[in-house]
C-alpha cells in the first residue's frame, strides 16, 4: 500500500531569520520506506523543480550515530517508541495523513537551517568532565580491577545514550538532566570513574546551567521519548552524586 501525504515542514534560512511552516504534498510513498527516505523523495522533487531541498542532519541511518532528530507530530523521533527518526518507517502512518515536521526547539540548540540544529552544547558538557583522566598507555591490566556484573550492566544502560538531544527537545524546560545523568551514571558506576566523580558532577551541572539548559521538574518526558530507553533513575543518581559532592 502506498501513501499520499500532506507535509507541514519548518523552513528557516538561518538562526537569525524568522522561520515558517511550508506545506508540501507527496504521493505514492511506499509503506516499506523509512521516514528519511520519504524526505529524500521530497527533496528529489524539490531539486527537480529548482527549489532548495529541506536541510536536516542524518548519517548512519541505523539508529546509533545520534545525528538525526526531528519533531514529528509533536513527538521527538515520531510516533514509534525506542527508535530514532532514521529507524521510523512509513507504515506507522496512514494514507491521507498530515505530518508536521519541526526541528528540536531549545535555547541551547539554536536552529542552523530548516530542521538542522546546533548541538555543540552537548560536546561542551562532555568536555567538562564526562571522561576518565587516563593517558594512553598508563592503564593497568584490564582484569586487575573486578567490576560487579550488575554495575557493569547498569553502567552500560546509561552509556547507551547516543547524544541525539531528544530528551532536551521533549522537556518543557529544555533540561539536559537526562543526558548529563546518563554520563555521570555511566562513569560513576565503574571503579575507574569513581576517582573523579565529585569534580565531574559539579562541573557538568554548572556548565549545564551556563549553556542555557533548564532545570528538571520530574515530568518524565525525556524518559518517554529517549530512543535508547535511558531511565529517570539516571537523573536520581545525578542528584545523589551532586549532593554527595556538595557535602
Amino acid at each position, binding site marked *: 500500500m502506498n501513501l499520499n501525504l500532506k507535509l507541514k515542514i519548518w523552513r528557516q534560512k538561518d538562526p537569525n531569520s524568522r522561520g515558517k511552516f511550508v506545506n508540501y504534498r507527496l504521493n505514492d510513498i511506499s509503506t516499506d520506506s523509512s521516514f528519511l527516505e520519504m524526505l529524500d523523495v521530497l527533496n528529489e522533487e524539490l531539486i527537480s523543480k529548482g527549489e532548495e531541498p529541506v536541510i536536516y542532519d542524518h*548519517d548512519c541511518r541505523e539508529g546509533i*550515530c*545520534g545525528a538525526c532528530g526531528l519533531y514529528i507530530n509533536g513527538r521527538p523521533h515520531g510516533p514509534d517508541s525506542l527508535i530514532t527518526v532514521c529507524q521510523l518507517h512509513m507504515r506507522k502512518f496512514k494514507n491521507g495523513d498530515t505530518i508536521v515536521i519541526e526541528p528540536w526547539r531549545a535555547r541551547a540548540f539554536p536552529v542552523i537551517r530548516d530542521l538542522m540544529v546546533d548541538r555543540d552544547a552537548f560536546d561542551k558538557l562532555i568536555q567538562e568532565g*564526562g*571522561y576518565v583522566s587516563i593517558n594512553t*598507555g598508563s592503564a593497568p591490566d*584490564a582484569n586487575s580491577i573486578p567490576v560487579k556484573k550488575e554495575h557493569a550492566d547498569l553502567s552500560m544502560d546509561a552509556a547507551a545514550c547516543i547524544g541525539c538531544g531528544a530528551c532536551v527537545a521533549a522537556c518543557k524546560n529544555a533540561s539536559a538532566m537526562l543526558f548529563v545523568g546518563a554520563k555521570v551514571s555511566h562513569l560513576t558506576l565503574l571503579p*575507574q570513574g569513581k576517582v573523579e566523580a565529585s569534580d565531574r558532577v559539579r562541573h557538568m551541572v554548572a556548565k549545564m546551567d551556563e549553556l542555557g539548559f533548564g532545570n528538571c521538574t520530574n515530568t518524565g518526558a525525556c524518559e518517554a521519548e529517549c530512543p535508547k530507553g535511558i531511565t529517570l533513575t539516571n537523573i536520581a543518581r545525578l542528584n545523589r552524586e551532586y549532593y554527595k559532592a556538595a557535602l
Partner: protein
Amino acid sequence: MHKLQSRIPEGPLAEKWSNYKSNQNLVNPANKRKLDVIVIGTGLAGAAAAASMAEMGFKVKSFCYQDSSRRAHSIAAQGGINAAKNYQNDGDSIYRLFFDTIKGGDYRSREANVYRLAEVSNEIIDQCVGQGVPFAREYGGTLDNRSFGGALVSRTFYARGQTGQQLLLGAYQALSRQVKKGNVEMYPRMEMFNLVMVDGKARGIIARDVITGKLERYSAHAVVLASGGYGNVFFLSTMAMGANASAAWQCYKKGALFGNPCMVQIHPTCIPVHGEYQSKLTLMSESLRNDGRIWVPKKIEDAKRLQSGEIGGVDIPEEDRDYYLERRYPAFGNLVPRDVASRAAKERCDAGFGVNSTGLAVFLDFKDAINRLGKDVIEAKYGNLFQMYEKITDDVPYEVPMMIYPAIHYTMGGIWVDYELHTTVPGLFATGESNFSDHGANRLGASALMQGLADGYFVLPYTIQNYLADEINTPRFKTDIPEFDKAENEVQEQLEKLMNVRGTMSVDTLHKKLGKIMWEGVGMSRNKEGLKIAIDEITKLKKEFWLNVNIPGEINDLNQELQKASRLADFIELGDLMARDALNREESCGGHFRDEYQTEEGEALRNDKDFTYVAAWEFKGEDKEPALHKEPLNFEYIEVKQRNYK
C-alpha cells in the same frame, strides 16, 4: 617513480616492534609544543590518535564532517573487538591471533604489521577498560568474551551489540578531555577538500565549512588521514550516508599511492533491499549465524511462489528446503567466513531461488534454535537484533524466517602505507580503514575495531615522531603563501565547475547509476569481460555527470547537494581505479572473486606465484591511466596454504 619501501624493522618477528620503539627518533617535550598535527576524521583511529598525540604534548587540529566528533561511523560496529588476552584459558596467544588474521586475509597482508597489531591488541583492552568502557562481564567481575568467525578461541570483547559505540565514546571522551585542556582544536562540520604540499611535504589542508560554504586554510607539520573507507562507491552499503573517500582521493591525486582498491568486504547478513528509494542497508550481526540456519527452497516452483508473495517461508515443508551452506560446507556450515557465505547466497539467487519479491534474498531461520533452546534464550541472545529487524521489515523473526542478503560493508583497500603508517607523501600518514591496512583480502569479524584503535592509540603516536623529530626546526607558518593559494584555487575551480554544470539529473540519481555499475561489474564476483564493461560504463557516467548534474543553491552557503556532488565526482574516479585493480588481479582471494579463477567446487583460487603482492596505484593525471607498483609480500613465519572451510 616511487620505490615502495615497507620499512619493516630488522630482527625476528616478535621483536620487530620493540626494536623499532627502542631505536626510533623521539621528540622532547619542549619541542612537542611547537609541532602541529592535523587529523582528518574522528572515528576510532582519528579520535584515538588525536587524543594520544595531544596527551604527549603535540598541538592537534581535529576535523570531522559530522556535527560532533562522537558521530563517526565506527559507532555503528556491533559485534566486538579481538584481543589475544587468553582470559578464557583456551590457548590463545599473540601468535595465534596473528596467524588467524593472516589466514583470514587470504595471505595478502604484511606479516610484520599484522604481528604488531596482535601484539598491541592487549594494551587496547587495558586502555579502554581504564577509560570506563563498560565491557560485558562475568559474575565474578572479570571480562567476558565470545567467539567470532574464523577463530577457534573466544577472544572477542564486547559491550552488548554496541561495542563500536562504546569504544568510540571512550576515544571521544579522551579527545574531549584534550579539547578542554586546549591541546586539541576541534573543527566539526569541516570537510577536507585538498592537501597542501610545501617543498614536497604535506603541510596543511584546505577545508570547507559545511555551514557557511567558506574555504579555510590550516597548516601543520604533518597530516594524518583517518577518514574511513569507501564502501559508498556502491551507493547502497552499510556505511553512514556521509562516509566518503574524498579526503583520501585528494591525497591520492597529490601522490599518495592507493593500495589494493579492489579489496572490498561484502557482509552476508544484511536486510535485503526493499525498493528503489532505499538509501542504505542495515547489517544484522554475524553472531546470528551461530543459531540461524540459512536456506532457500529446493524447488524452483516454490521460489517463484515466494517471489510472487503467494506463500511464505513457513509454508515450505522441511524436505523441500535447501540448507545450502550446510550442504556445501559440512564442517563449518552456517559459520563459514563472510566472503564464502556471501558468494553462496548470490549463487542461489542468481540461479532463481531467491525468496522475496526482488528475488535477492535468502532465509535465515531460527525455528530449530527456538525449538531446541526456547524462545526466551533466543530473545536474551538476539532480542535487540530481532527488534531492529521487525522495525524495519514488519516481520517477526520468532514466527517467520528472517530474510537476508549480502551488502558492501568494509573496504580492506586504502591509501598505501609503510610500517610507520607513512604514505608515499612525506608528512602524510594514514590510519584505520583509510589505509590499505592489515586485513589483506578479507577482514575477520571484530578486527576492524582492533586495527582502528591499534593505529590510533599505540602505533601512529609513536611512528609519527620518527618523522616529526626532523621537523623541530620548522617554525609554525602562515597560510598566506603561494602553495595555499594554489590549493585553495584548485578547490574553488572544482566547486565552480560543479555548480556551473546546471544539468537536469540529481546527484543521487547519478550515484545510484554508479552503484549499479559497481555492484554488477565490480561486486561480489567479477570477470574480465564484466570489468571491462564496467570501466567503459564508468567513463560514460563520468561524462554524463559533468554534463548533467543538477546542484541547486549557492556555492558559498550550506549546500548538501554540492557536498554530495563533490564526493560523487571522486567516487566515480575511485570506481574506475577499483575496476582496474580487479582486472589486474587475475586470481581469486578473499573478498576479490574472479569467475575465471575458481576450483571445481566453486571456491576461490589464488595465484600465489604471480599475485603475492600489494597492488599500489599511482595517479598520473586526469584521464590518464594510473601506474601500478608492486610491493611483494614475503611470508617468513607462516606457511601459505589454501583456505579450507569444508
